[in-house]
Structure formats: structure tokens, C-alpha cells
């Protein structure tokens, strides 16, 4: 039983924290969100040089990490900085798929190349098995037709891992396949996101060579689920980092802001509510540790849903309490809190909200029992 980071992870964490503190802030993030791809490419290149995507892969895969606690270390720092990056989409989602199906390509991801992940669809909500996009085998190869929803950093990506159905009903786990699709084969409508970064709706109507297929046709569901388990670990750790920064901002505010002749942190009602927030952030940290420590155990999915549920609930409490304790200033986009709070608030809208994962947790524990 040991809860300290290894020396390597500690060094990576320290380095990232310093670098991010020096390189970005909520105004730069807003500027990048208003920019062409939603990404500050120079910053991303710098992060890649520091080993940001590399830590998501094992040495065999050309990286220097790949375990749950590597994901936690890195993603928590991105959250602390409030920085939207393609880490989850490119390194954790597409990366997990490619490491399994095209190991020769992971080197490029480690070097910072961005491969987007186009799986979710407009009507899917949070159902990973909902794939209406079709892939037909033709003489020339594979013809993909359909629509993908909210593909993050699509304009920054060189290509995409795309899911499409080669057989089965729209909601079936069987019959889903994955393809590697170059950027020029898709049509994108991009837009900014609440909480920063950009995404796009994707229209597919393209024919791809035969070798665009990743892995076995029709059998991709388990790999998609594994990729999402890792992505959710990253997302939850990022949420934890966001909570830490929001906590710091709020504690500072409570200490410095004076009203009725004293710092508002002297008001007992706020003290007690802040204590509850602190307790819940510790709960969130423990849930992330539980998930990251179980990414490769049979309890993985139970911890995925436990963490996603708990993080979703705590995120709402942290968002709402921090804005309330800040008062008016917390409502503005000029002050940093607004960005962090919105970004944290969006965590519950990707990969399943707290209720969805509560349902899944019940299902998993009742089928285990």
C-alpha cells in the first residue's frame, strides 16, 4: 500500500506544472478557442517534447509509461491549468486503438501527431454501442457513410479513428468496426466549446482502401470500451485538477475578499460549506486513484462507473459552490474562475453523466453478485 508518485512521475508532474504555469492562462485558452483549430499548436508541441503523449504509452509502444497512474499524473496537471488538449482523443482514445491494431503508428502519436477519435454520433447520447454510420465492403475497399458528433480538435487532427457498422442493428455491440480515415476524406463543421477548445460535426461519405480497417471487422466493441476506460481515467483526473485550481481560487477569494468589515472566509456558514467542498475533492481524488489503479483489473468497469459518477456529482457541487462563494465576479468570463468552472461543468457531458454511470454501476454490481 503506497500512495506516493514514483520519482519519475513526480518529476514529470513538477515539470508540467511549471511549464503550464508559465505558458498558459485562461485568456490564452480563450484566444486559442477563438482561433482556427481551438489549439495553441506551439504549446502542444512543447508539451509533446516534455513527453505529454509519450507518458500515455508503454516502452514497447515507444512511450515511457502507459499505466493508470501515468494518465492521472499528466491529466491532473492539464486540468490544473484548465488547458484543453487533444490528449484524451489522440493519445488515450485513438492511441489505445492504434497501439492494439497499428503499433507502428504510436511513435507518431508520441511525437505529438494528432489523430482524432470519431465514434459518438448525434443520436447516441452516451451509448457506446450506438453506431449508425455504415461501412460497406466494395471492390475498391470500404465505403463509409454517416455522421459523427462533437469530434474534438477535428481541425487540428491529421486523421481520425472512425467507428462504423459493418453488420448488426444500430445499438448492437457486435458488428462495429474501426477505420483509420485521413483528414481529407471527411467533411467538418467546427465550432467552439463551452469550457474551451473546438470540436466538429463530421459527415462521412468516402471510399477508403481496404487497409483502412483497424483490427478485425465487426469486433471492435471491446477495444472501444477499453479505450473509453482509459479516456475516462484521463477525464476524471483532469476534472480533479480543475477542482484543485477552483479550490485554490476560492480559498484565496475567501481569504482576501472583505465584506461587512472582515474577510468573507470568516463567515461560519461559508467555512462549513467550504469544508464540505474540500471533503468531496478528497473523495474525488480517491475515486480517481481507485480507477487508475484498476485499469487493468477485472474491476475496471466498476471503477470506471464509480469514478465517473462521483466526479460528476462533486463537479457540480464544486462548480456551483465556487461561483456562489465568489458572488458576481464568479459569473464573469473576465476572471479565471468562469473558465475553470465551465470546463469542469462540461465533464458530465462527455462519456456518460453521473446518472448514466450510476445505472451502469448498479448493473455491473448486480450481475457480479
Amino acid at each position, binding site marked *: 500500500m503506497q500512495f506516493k508518485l514514483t520519482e519519475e512521475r513526480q518529476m514529470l508532474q513538477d515539470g508540467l506544472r511549471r511549464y503550464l504555469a508559465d505558458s498558459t492562462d485562461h485568456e490564452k485558452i480563450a484566444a486559442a478557442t477563438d482561433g482556427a483549430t481551438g489549439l495553441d499548436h506551439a504549446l502542444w508541441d512543447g508539451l509533446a517534447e516534455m513527453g505529454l503523449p509519450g507518458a500515455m504509452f508503454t516502452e514497447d509502444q515507444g512511450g515511457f509509461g502507459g499505466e493508470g497512474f501515468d494518465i492521472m499524473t499528466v491529466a491532473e496537471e492539464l486540468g490544473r491549468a484548465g488547458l484543453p488538449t487533444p490528449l484524451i482523443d489522440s493519445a488515450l482514445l485513438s492511441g489505445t486503438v492504434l497501439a492494439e491494431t497499428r503499433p507502428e503508428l504510436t511513435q507518431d502519436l508520441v511525437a505529438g501527431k494528432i489523430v482524432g477519435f470519431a465514434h459518438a454520433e448525434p443520436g447516441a*447520447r452516451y451509448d457506446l454501442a450506438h453506431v449508425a454510420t455504415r461501412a460497406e465492403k466494395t471492390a475498391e475497399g470500404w465505403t463509409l457513410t454517416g455522421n459523427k458528433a462533437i469530434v474534438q480538435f477535428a481541425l487540428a487532427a491529421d486523421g481520425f479513428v472512425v467507428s462504423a457498422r459493418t453488420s448488426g442493428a444500430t445499438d448492437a455491440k457486435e458488428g462495429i468496426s474501426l477505420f483509420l480515415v485521413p483528414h481529407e476524406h471527411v467533411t467538418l463543421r467546427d465550432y467552439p466549446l463551452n469550457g474551451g477548445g473546438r470540436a466538429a460535426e463530421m459527415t462521412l461519405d468516402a471510399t477508403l482502401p481496404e487497409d483502412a480497417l483497424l483490427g478485425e471487422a465487426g469486433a471492435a466493441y471491446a477495444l472501444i470500451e477499453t479505450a473509453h476506460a482509459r479516456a475516462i481515467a484521463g477525464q476524471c483526473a483532469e476534472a480533479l485538477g480543475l477542482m484543485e485550481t477552483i479550490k485554490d481560487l476560492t480559498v484565496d477569494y475567501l481569504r482576501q475578499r472583505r*465584506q461587512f468589515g472582515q474577510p468573507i472566509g470568516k463567515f461560519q456558514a461559508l467555512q462549513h460549506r467550504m469544508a464540505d467542498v474540500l471533503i468531496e475533492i478528497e473523495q474525488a481524488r480517491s475515486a480517481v486513484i481507485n480507477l487508475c489503479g484498476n485499469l487493468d483489473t477485472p474491476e475496471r468497469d466498476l471503477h470506471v462507473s464509480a469514478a465517473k459518477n462521483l466526479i460528476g456529482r462533486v463537479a457540480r457541487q464544486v462548480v456551483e459552490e465556487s461561483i456562489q462563494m465568489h458572488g458576481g465576479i464568479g459569473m464573469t468570463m*473576465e476572471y479565471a474562475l468562469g473558465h475553470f468552472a465551465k470546463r469542469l461543468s462540461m465533464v458530465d457531458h462527455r462519456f456518460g453523466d453521473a446518472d448514466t454511470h450510476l445505472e451502469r454501476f448498479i448493473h455491473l454490481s448486480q450481475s457480479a453478485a
Partner: protein
Amino acid sequence: MNLGYTEEQKAFRDEVRAFLNDNLPKRLSDKVAGGKRLTKADYEEWHAILNARGWLGVNWPTQYGGTGWDAVQRHIFEEETTAAHAPRIVPFGVAMLGPVLMAFGSDAQKAHYLPRILNGEDWWCQGYSEPGAGSDLANVQTTAVRDGDDYIVNGQKTWTTLGQHADWIFCLVRTSKEGKRQEGISFLLIDMKTPGIEVRPIVLIDGEPEVNEVWFKDVRVPAANLVGEENKGWTYAKYLLTHERTNIAGVGFARAGLASLKRIAGSQSHNGKPLIQNPFFAAKVAQVEIDLMAMATTNLRTIAAAASGQAPGAESSMLKVKGTVIRQQINALAKQAVGPYAAPFVSELLDEGTNVDPVGPAEAMPATQAYFNNRKLSIYGGSNEVQRAIISKAILEL
């Protein structure tokens, strides 16, 4: 006890309904229902329609061109206009300044300003809050120094809602530093076109510039614009804050929000069924509906007491807290309901007649923006913390 309206009240309700049916432009109700951004012209159009019918001065006595309605009538009017998705009446002139002028203004002020509020010549905004003051309203730093027949005003106001549209601002200013903080405050009317005034919009977390900062640098204001006596402004300010806060419970808004939430949750599919049929989601919706049913009756009880002449005490604060909590819960559920499409933010979609298509369901973005915007409900108008202090003090008497 009798939970229903009297025959007279029912007739009044029918009259309001008929009026809305005939006179509320569909263009406006569509914008309100669709969560679009309302322009200054939109508000002015609706004010003019109400004023033509004599229904703009909702809480004004007839002698000043108001409706003379009692609390129950005002409640019915509020309920019906909200249900019909009418724009709200911009409160600063009608609901706030009007009653203060009637009670404390000079005859000349009443004769000049009151008709202009109704006929739309003056758009007013409120200059109460200052940076760093928060809920501590008596912490007024903006100064007004007498110079001949004028005051010279210096300082800064903030959170000035819709101040970007305003012709005039009513301000709390400090005219004396003697005695208690409350004793040196005056209530001043200031023309926004006066040199030295600068307005800067503040973008809120819903992406909209709803509020503003207003700077005053050596702004010269005629002393005739002082309301009541110098250094007595705190009395007038408190009168404004406690004077019949119309619709503090926001029952109409909550009902409209709940109906919209149910529509969204009926159209969103979750694991192959409408989300509203998911037991967890249905439970949360039902819970807030049950709370709202009770709160609506608490509201009616307070209104009935007010109509029979009782002054509401801590009840207003209770309604403020519970009402805002319920509305915020409804907003949070609507945001949850729209799922992944809560994330995209396309500002142009808020414009009327935009030819930009929504990303995902059309209701997604307005639902999310409403959640963020309505975090303000528990902060402004006396934060819920301030209201809880009022409630507990009233009963604990400590």
C-alpha cells in the same frame, strides 16, 4: 381556506389571456420561448403594447397611470404573461424607480419622469452595486460633491443590468462621510449622456454581455436630480428593495422551465427510450415538480396575505431562496437532459433570424446557457446567504 380564484379573479385572468392572445407578437414569444437574445427594440415594442392597454405600470396606482391592481391580480398577470412567453417588463424604471419617486420624489420629478417611464422615452438602469461591495450595499464609495447647483460625481458602479441600453441611471452616491455608513448616502438621478460617464459591458459565463460596469469621472449632475433629502438615500434604497418585490418566487419562470424540461426530456432518447421514462431522471423531474407545487402555494399564501394588507416579512426571503433553488435545479436538469450537445457554443444562434443551424438539438444551447446564466439567481437581489440570515434572524431574534 380556498385554493381557487374567485369568479372575479377568473374573469380577470381570462381578460389577460385574451389580451395576450390578441396582442403579444408571435415574433417576440418565439424568441423568448427559444431562448434567443432580446434586443432593446424588442423590450420597447412590448412595453409600448402594454402601455397602450394601460398595463405597463403593473404595480403603480391609477393616479400615476398604473393599473391599481392588487397582489392577486399582479400575480395572475405575471403568471399569464410568463406562460405565454411574453418578454419580461424591464424592472428598473417601472418596478424600482417608479415607486421610489412616488413616495419620495418632488412633484416636478413625478410629473417629469413617471410618464416618460411608461411611454418609453427613458430607459432606466440601476446604480447600486459597486466593485468590492457585494451584498454589503451600504458600502458606497462613489462620491457626489456639491458644487454650486450641481453635484460632481466620481466613482464606479457595477453589475448594471442592461445598462448598455439605458438613458438614465439612478444611483446611490456618498454625500457625507460623517456618522454611520448608512447616513451619508444620497439617491441621485443621472443622465447617461452626461460627459464623463463610460459604460463597459461584462461578459458573463453564458457568453452574454448582460451586465455592465459604469464609470463616473467628474460627472456634473444638477442638484435638482436629487431624490428626497441629501444623506437620506439609504432609506429610499431600502424602500425600493423591500417594496413589494414582485414575483420574487419566480413561479411562472419555474413552470415554463419545467414544461420546457419535460419537452426536452421527452425528445431526448436514452438507451432507446425517451429520457423522461428513465427512472432516475423521472425521479428528479418529479421531485422538483412536487417542490414547485408546494412553493407555488407558499407564494399564493404570501400574496393572499399581502392582498389582505399584511406586510410580508421573512416570507419574501423564504420565497427568494426556495424559488431560486427550484429554478436552478430545473436549469441543471435541462442541461443534463441535452447530454453531449451541452458543449457546443455558437453565439450567433442567439440572434433573431439567424441562418446558422444549431449544433445538435435546437434546445441544447439555450438550456446550457440558461444554467450558467441563472447561477446569478442565488447571488443577486440579496444573495441566498443574505436571505438565510434574514430568515433566521426573524425567528431566532438574536
